[in-house]
């Protein structure tokens, strides 16, 4: 097991190296000049050139890359070109809202989606099944910002149950956090619930056709035990997998939701950085999100052993 973990982590290295090279090149080939952004509207070409030089942007590409990787190896993600803040500090400030809301969303989604999916599979081809499936296809079909607006309009403006926007740290006030996080979480969860519910249903359907489910029934085991103890656990691996790959969807949802609900998270940080060509921030953020994605999927891989004793590493 430990050996496997080490091997998996080693296998992550080439992936992250490719991500790093890719991102670096992508950005350097992008038109856009952070110096122009810093200097503002009335700067002259000569001023621009001087700023560019002081930012190290006039070095040849490979020199910039080596410098960056060297610093990276020492845990130095660089300094934002635009705000002159260390990138680690920016991440430190911004990552918590995203992580908290992301985690809450995943929890919420799993809690809603898995029972829904089980229900749909159990009541296969009944109206319950069709209702769940319709909902889950619908969840895929409406742009996330539209869902966000609808929720705001309904719950915050018309009903006035919840605040419209913003973020409160749970360390400040748990209630404040929840009341502000619930709408973004629901918005994000729509698509995630759809994804997980449909995967739960599909893999459960598959499992319900298996011989051992028939065996369990032949033993006279109660239906809910058949569903949850026998079927669901066997269906868990594909469900976990979809939670892992769906994580990518979550990230894109986060980027949008953070704008709609004005949450100071890393999604917005990254989009702003891309639009401002804040290279060190973009690089760090894409590396970070990729690393999180890889890490989450590693955890999910490892979690398979919990569900399936046949999987040995």
């Amino acid at each position: 097991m430990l050996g496997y973990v080490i091997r998996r982590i080693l296998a992550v290295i080439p992936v992250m190296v490719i991500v790093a090279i890719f991102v670096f090149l992508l950005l350097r080939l992008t038109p856009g000049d952070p110096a122009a952004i810093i200097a503002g509207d009335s700067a002259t070409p000569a001023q621009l050139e001087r700023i560019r030089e002081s930012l190290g942007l006039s070095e040849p590409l490979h020199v910039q890359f080596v410098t960056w990787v060297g610093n990276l190896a020492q845990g130095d993600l660089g300094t934002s070109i635009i705000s002159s803040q260390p990138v680690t500090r920016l991440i430190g400030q911004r990552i918590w809202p995203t992580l908290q809301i992301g985690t809450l969303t995943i929890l919420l989604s799993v809690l809603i989606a898995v029972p829904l999916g089980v229900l749909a599979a159990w009541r296969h081809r009944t109206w319950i099944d069709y209702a769940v499936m319709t909902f889950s296809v619908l969840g895929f079909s409406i742009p996330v910002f539209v869902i966000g607006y609808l929720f705001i309009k309904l719950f915050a403006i018309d009903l006035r149950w919840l605040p419209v926007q913003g973020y409160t740290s749970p360390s400040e006030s748990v209630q404040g956090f929840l009341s502000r996080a619930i709408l973004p979480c629901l918005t994000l969860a729509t698509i995630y619930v759809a994804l997980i519910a449909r995967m739960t249903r599909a893999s459960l359907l598959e499992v319900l056709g298996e011989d051992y489910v028939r065996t369990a029934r032949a033993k006279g085991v109660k239906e809910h035990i058949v569903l949850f103890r026998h079927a669901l656990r066997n269906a868990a691996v594909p469900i976990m997998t979809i939670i892992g790959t769906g994580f990518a969807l979550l990230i894109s949802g986060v980027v949008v939701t953070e704008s709609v609900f004005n949450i100071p998270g890393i999604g917005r940080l990254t989009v702003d950085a891309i639009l401002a060509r804040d290279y060190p921030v973009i690089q760090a953020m894409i590396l970070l999100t990729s690393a999180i994605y890889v890490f989450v999927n590693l955890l999910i891989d490892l979690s398979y052993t919990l569900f399936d004793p046949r999987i040995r590493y």
Partner: protein
Amino acid sequence: AQDEAETITAVMHSGLRVLDPIITTAHITRNHGYMIYDVLIAVNENFEVQPQMADFEVSEDGLTYTFTLRDGLMFHDGEPVTAADAVASLKRWGERDSGGQLIFDVTASLEATDDKTVTWTLNEPFTPLLDIVAKQSAVPPFIMPARIAETSADEAITEYVGSGPFTFVEEEFEPGVSVTYEKFADYVPREEPADWMAGGKVVNVDRVVWTTMPDAQTAINALVSGEIDYLEQAQIDLLPILQASPDLTVEVRDPLGFQTMGRMNFKYPPFDDEKIRQAALMAISQENVLATLVGNPEYYSLCGAIFGCGTPLADETGSDTLKSGGDAEAARALLEEAGYDNTPVVLMQPTDVVTLTAQPVVVAQALRDAGFNVDMQAMDWQTLVTRRASQSAPADGGWNIFFTNWSVPEISSPLINPMVNGRGDDAWFGWPEDPALEELRAEFIAADGAEAQAEVAQRIQAHVLETVNYIPLGQYLTVQARSNKMVDMIQQPVPVFWQVDKTE
């Protein structure tokens, strides 16, 4: 305890990212500057220069300016403000600011003659000196400690210590998201009542938090539901929502507003040809641009004055077609006469700046109607600012025309208006080579008295529109909205948070 502190939460027009108020012209950074820094002198409502940190005196011959710091000035780190700090700050500012550069071109010496006195000696008289030093935009000379002001003018400062009425809470600063200011307890305001940027900066609240909302919709909702107190720029189309709320006040923040304009590239066809530029100007209707951009006519005005309507030098010579809705027929004729060969016009359109999305689209249509072959290229604003600096041919990553906005005071005189500059490659983007314009500018600097200046300014206006140096597209106002709990807010272009109070 923080909860009980009186806090104003304000949504500003943009996120604060750059903290060095000298290195950038960004308005949000200037506003930040006014929070934590102080200035030597400032203007009042009537654009009259008033003492702020310092009293001033001009020698008879107009060659020596003496600034005397008032008592009780202190930086946030507890150190007193000295004349040496002011000198270092002015020098750094002089390297960046175009107005400052003009002064330093004629400066003999700038020195701290004692702890409290700054003496500025010129080689030749430069009447606008006080106006430039007191200006509230784009880059005012903020005073910072000498050790910080000694940072190279091309590098951003990394320490944020001023002597202004608020302190910057660095731990709570989240670039692009929020910035927190606290009342600086040791600030000694002037005795006089506050008047625009001048007068006593009496702070009545404990904290001011600026946040950014990338989504205009969200900001409006937040204000309506009472989650924020102040919205610096409300989307005009959405005003009815705000006006419907009895708890809110909607008002124009600054009577001058902004000028929106288009600029062509003089280096490449087709706009290297004056006739074709004239045809373009003729095709355009300000009304269409402004109506699309702003919507409600209450908040925009047609204005052909390059120095902005409502300013002392305003003059609208040459702007008839612009204001009367354009003349596509005449433009077409003119184009034909110029022998336009259908060279594509590369028109840059930013997609991510709300106040700049309408102009390119409307102008593109007008140009097409007049027979231009328009190649509208969408890009984000950052690509645009990079690309407009490129002197390559339009086909190789250059451009032909783009649009931007200026706060009216920033363009209100030939001295500071960046477009009115004919020095070719050293001129502003577009790079017109126009010796005649340069001569006119020199005349303006030399002109004595307001009347003489106005006369030269009027000739500059005529020249600029004749040669189509750039195309003024009219003026629009920005509207602020605030909770009625906020009282006594000063009405002016720069939103400042002294004097304002928050009632319960």
